[in-house]
C-alpha cells in the first residue's frame, strides 16, 4: 500500500524538489530522506491528508537543513531561507506538476544514451540503482557511477530543467521517445516484463503530460500492442513465432487500448516510425492478417528509417503475399550476415521451399548467433524437424 503511494509520488516529489532546489543531486537526497521519514511515520500514524505536499515540504526542509550545515553552499542557503515560512503550509494545489521538466532533463541529448536510460528509470520510474543495474547486467557500482556522473554533468554544464521551446520540442521529444522505446525493448527482448511495464507506465505518463503530441500515443500504442502478446511469445521456455502463437493468451483489453491510442495518434497526424510500427502490430492482432497491407507498411517504414532490418521484416510479409521464393530474393539482396534474424528468416523460407540442406545451414548459423535460450530451443526444434 505505502509502496504503491511511494512509487506514484516519487517522480512528482523529485520533480518538485529539483525545480525548487535547482539541483537534481540535492533533490534526490532530499526526496530519499523524505520518503524514509514517511515510511517510518506513516506506518505508525497513518498517512497525512495530503501525502504529496507532505513529502515535498519535508524534502524541502531537509534540504534546507542540509544546506545550512554546508558552508560551501552558504550563498544558496540565504537564497532558500527567504521562501521557507510559506512552504510549511503548502498543500497539493500549490505544488506545480514539474514531471515534464524532469523528463526532458533526464533525456537531454547532452547525456550519453545509457545515462539517459538510467536516469529516467531512477528519477521517473523510481527504480533503485540496484534494480537498474540488474536490468542492464552491470554491477551496482558501475550503475552508481553512471548515475552520479550524469547528475554531475547536469550540474556542471547547467543542463536546463525546462520544457524545450516549441521549435525545439519535436527533436527533443523524439529523444525522449527513443529512451522509452529502448527501455521497452530491453524488457521485451530479454524477457524482463517489469521493464516493459515500466516503459508503458512512462508512456502513459507522457501521453497525459503532452496530450497534443501525435508521436507519444503512437509509441504507447506500439508498446501496448507488442506487450499484449507477451504471454504467448514463449511456450515451455521456447520462442513461438507469430503464426503459431495461442491467440487465447493475448491480452484483448490491452489490444483494444493500443488500437484506440493508434486511432488517436493518427487523428493527431502521427505519421512517424512509431505510428507505422503500431499499425503493423495492430494488423498482426487481426484474426485474418492483411499481409499486403503489412508489406506496404513495412515499405513505408523502410522509406522512413532506411534500415535493412525493416526490409527483412517486409520479406516475411512478401512470403505471405507473393510466396517464399520472392521473399528469399528480397532477403538475399540484404547485407545482414551478422544478424541472427537474417539467418533464421532465410532458414524459414528455405524450409518452406523444400531446400532442406540450405535450410539446415541457415538454422545453424542463426543458432550460432542466437542470444537467448528460448530462441536457441526454437531453432534446435526446427533443425530436428527438418
Amino acid at each position, binding site marked *: 500500500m505505502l509502496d504503491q503511494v511511494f512509487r506514484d509520488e516519487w517522480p512528482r516529489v523529485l520533480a518538485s524538489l529539483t525545480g525548487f532546489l535547482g539541483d537534481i543531486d540535492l533533490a534526490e537526497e532530499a526526496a530519499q530522506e523524505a520518503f524514509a521519514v514517511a515510511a517510518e511515520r506513516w506506518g505508525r500514524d497513518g498517512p497525512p491528508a495530503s501525502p504529496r505536499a507532505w513529502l515535498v515540504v519535508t524534502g524541502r526542509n531537509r534540504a534546507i537543513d542540509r544546506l545550512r550545515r554546508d558552508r560551501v553552499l552558504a550563498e544558496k542557503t540565504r537564497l532558500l531561507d527567504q521562501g521557507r515560512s510559506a512552504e510549511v503550509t503548502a498543500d497539493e494545489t500549490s505544488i506545480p506538476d514539474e514531471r515534464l521538466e524532469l523528463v526532458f532533463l533526464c533525456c537531454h541529448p547532452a547525456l550519453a544514451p545509457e545515462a539517459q536510460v538510467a536516469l529516467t528509470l531512477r528519477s521517473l520510474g523510481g527504480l533503485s540503482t540496484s534494480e537498474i543495474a540488474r536490468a542492464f547486467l552491470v554491477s551496482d557500482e558501475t550503475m552508481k557511477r553512471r548515475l552520479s556522473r550524469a547528475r554531475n554533468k547536469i550540474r556542471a*554544464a*547547467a543542463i*536546463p530543467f*525546462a520544457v524545450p521551446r516549441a521549435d*525545439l520540442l519535436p527533436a527533443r521529444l523524439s529523444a525522449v521517445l527513443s529512451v522509452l522505446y529502448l527501455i521497452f525493448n530491453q524488457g521485451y527482448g530479454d524477457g524482463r516484463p517489469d521493464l516493459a511495464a515500466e516503459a508503458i507506465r512512462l508512456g502513459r505518463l507522457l501521453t497525459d503530460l503532452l496530450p497534443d503530441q501525435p508521436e507519444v500515443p503512437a509509441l504507447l500504442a506500439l508498446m501496448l500492442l507488442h506487450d499484449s502478446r507477451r504471454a504467448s511469445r514463449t511456450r515451455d521456455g521456447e520462442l513461438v513465432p507469430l503464426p503459431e502463437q495461442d491467440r487465447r493468451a493475448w491480452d484483448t483489453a490491452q489490444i483494444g487500448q493500443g488500437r484506440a491510442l493508434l486511432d488517436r495518434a493518427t487523428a493527431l497526424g502521427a505519421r512517424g516510425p512509431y505510428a507505422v510500427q503500431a499499425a503493423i502490430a495492430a494488423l498482426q492482432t487481426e484474426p485474418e492478417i492483411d499481409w499486403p497491407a503489412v508489406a506496404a507498411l513495412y515499405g513505408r517504414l523502410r522509406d522512413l528509417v532506411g534500415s535493412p532490418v525493416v526490409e527483412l521484416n517486409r520479406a516475411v510479409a512478401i512470403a505471405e503475399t507473393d510466396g517464399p521464393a520472392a521473399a528469399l530474393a528480397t532477403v538475399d539482396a540484404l547485407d545482414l550476415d551478422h544478424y541472427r534474424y537474417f539467418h533464421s528468416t532465410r532458414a524459414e523460407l528455405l524450409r518452406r521451399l523444400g531446400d532442406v540442406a540450405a535450410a539446415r545451414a541457415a538454422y545453424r548459423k542463426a543458432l550460432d548467433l542466437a542470444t537467448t535460450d528460448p530462441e536457441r530451443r526454437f531453432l534446435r526444434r526446427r533443425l530436428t524437424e527438418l
Partner: protein
Amino acid sequence: MRYALLINERPGAYVGLSADERAAITAEYIALRHDERVFAGRRLEPADTATTVRAAGGELLLTDGPFADTKEIFGGFYLVEADNLDVAVELAARIPAVRMGGSVEIRPLAEY
C-alpha cells in the same frame, strides 16, 4: 553560467572557396563575437605555426606543430555567458565550422 566554445575545423574546409565566400564566413565569426553573450573570442593562426612544449628527462623538448595529429584542428574559441547548456548549444550551432565539417566542443568554465 560561463562556457568555452572550442572550435575544431576540418582541414581543408576553406579550400576552393572564393574570396567573397571566405569574407562572408569571417563576417559570421565577427558577428558572433559581437553577440552580447560572447565576452571573449580569438581565432588562432594555422596549426603549422604551432610549437609544442614538453618536458623529457628534466629537459624541455620542443616540437614543430600541434599537440596531436587529429582529423580536426583546434582553430579558435569563444567565451560566452549563457543561462544554461541549451543557450550555449544555440550559440555553438551558429559557428560556421559546424556546417563546414568541423565541430564545436562546449566546456563549462570552472568557477573559483
